């Protein structure tokens, strides 16, 4: 439906990547505080390939969430490009696309799951998850089946499925949220601390669910609170510091490099 804007990506992008961030800059001008400028990203380069799970690491304030939000366009990039390869094979710059096109991409190809559930009011848990599937093109019945499977997977008891999602506890909401975000996996999934409030058992179930996404070819870019999750899920770790990429490599190598500024879970 949507005609993506023709763009002119550089020739040297990795051919297979879903996401190629180049020279991404972001700062915030706070007009309400005398126009103070807060700098966040100073030219980030990053690639994510299909089936790859890239975890962002670094200390608090390193720009991990800012990067995710720029990719999702919740933040407007201050410079650079965010190349995204669509299902149709076009390379588009999310940083420069019209709002309406980005909105369409969000509906179908780019997903974002945070720790907060932004559920429709007065909508049952099952419908909330299933409608995430239908929104991405699943048939209604298939979506309900897949939703049921996903809810079982993340440990939401069946007697809760008919309840309004808004009445659930924080942890339950988080699990419903991840179920909805992964039911019909988009080409690119952005995970912003999706398991931060979960008890160990549920956390493990959710991580299992995310781990399975690799098989669907979904490209994942994530921010996790704890190194354990990164170690378990990530195929690659990118360490940010001071708004720049400090290091990139396999988790077993990066997580053991004590020279890197990593935030360690309690």
């Amino acid at each position, binding site marked *: 439906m949507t005609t993506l804007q023709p763009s002119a990506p550089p020739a040297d992008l990795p051919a297979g990547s879903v996401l190629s961030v180049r020279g991404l800059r972001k700062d915030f*001008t706070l007009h309400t505080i005398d126009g103070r400028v807060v700098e966040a990203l100073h030219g980030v380069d990053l690639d994510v390939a299909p089936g790859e799970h890239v975890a962002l690491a670094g200390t608090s304030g390193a720009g991990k969430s800012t990067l995710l939000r720029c990719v999702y366009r*919740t933040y407007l990039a201050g410079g650079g490009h965010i190349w995204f390869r669509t299902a149709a094979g076009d390379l588009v710059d999310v940083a420069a696309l019209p*709002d309406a096109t980005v909105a369409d991409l969000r509906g179908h190809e780019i997903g974002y799951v945070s720790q907060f559930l932004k559920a429709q009011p007065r909508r049952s848990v099952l419908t909330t998850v299933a409608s995430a599937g239908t929104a991405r093109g699943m048939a209604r019945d298939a979506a309900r089946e897949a939703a049921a499977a996903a809810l079982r997977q993340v440990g939401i008891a069946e007697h809760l499925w008919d309840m309004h999602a808004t009445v659930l506890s924080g942890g339950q909401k988080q699990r419903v949220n991840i179920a909805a975000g992964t039911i019909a996996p988009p080409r690119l999934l952005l995970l912003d601390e999706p398991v931060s409030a979960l008890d160990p058992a549920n956390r493990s179930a959710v991580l299992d669910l995310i781990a399975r996404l690799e098989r669907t070819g979904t490209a994942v870019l994530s921010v996790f609170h704890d190194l354990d999750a990164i170690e378990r899920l990530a195929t690659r770790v990118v360490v940010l510091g001071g708004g720049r990429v400090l290091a990139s490599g396999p988790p077993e190598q990066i997580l053991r490099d004590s020279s890197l500024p990593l935030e360690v879970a309690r």
Partner: protein
Amino acid sequence: MSTATVAPPAWALKVEGLGRIYGDPSPESVPGTGPESGTVISPATGAVVAAWDVGFEVAPGEALGIIGESGSGKSTVMRCIAGDEDATTGTINLRGVGDGTVDVRTLDPSARRGLRLHQLSAVYQDPAAGLNLDVTAGGNIADPLTAVGWRHYGRIRERAASLLRRVEVPLDRMDDLVRTFSGGMRQRVQIAKALANDPPVLLLDEPTTGLDASVAAGVLDLLRELLEETGVAAVVVSHDFAVIDLLTRRVLVMQHGRVVESGLTDQLLEDPQHPYSQQLVAAARG
């Protein structure tokens, strides 16, 4: 001319270069107004430039918000689209009218009013503006139905009942005068009336302003469901970010008659660019 049919546009509503000046409509009225000047009153002519150079598109199933304080011109824009008043300049196209090739401002007044039957509906802040309070809830819905030719009493009642059920007005109130209804209930009837003929475009002007918070929340929930279900293209005018956040995915910020910023709704809330937008967001965050 080519006989090839032109594909209909992706948008349901397109507005371009819309301007509304009260008073001298000549170009001299425009300079010296707008956000930089901090006023809508022309220093040259004294005219009020209530809206100027406003443009946007809304796709079917999409909701676009227009936010701003009172006097920002947002309601003026809505009234110009609804046809309640005529814009001074600009074009307004609806996909349903000549596949989007017709500027509805060029239609004669009668045809323009006719658009309100099939092509677009408006829900006003004050239910009395969209309803006849001395007519029953069912009768208010019968109005747009009979206007497009419904002549079967039983079927009119069935349709009215299903619309009222949809907006959660108890059916035992269907034959009560709307004057006896509470504010929230009146607003629900107004919404039902606006949807009676399944219009492709719906305009909502401060639909929950003036309602108690709990009542407003209920109406908002309803609206959100309706927008999602019906595939209608909606324009939501509000001064309230909570309303805009819940109902829309894109938003324009208006100040002193101009659009100062537009963007995805979450982006505007999380990363507003224009000083005025930041002010609005800061105020909304308390």
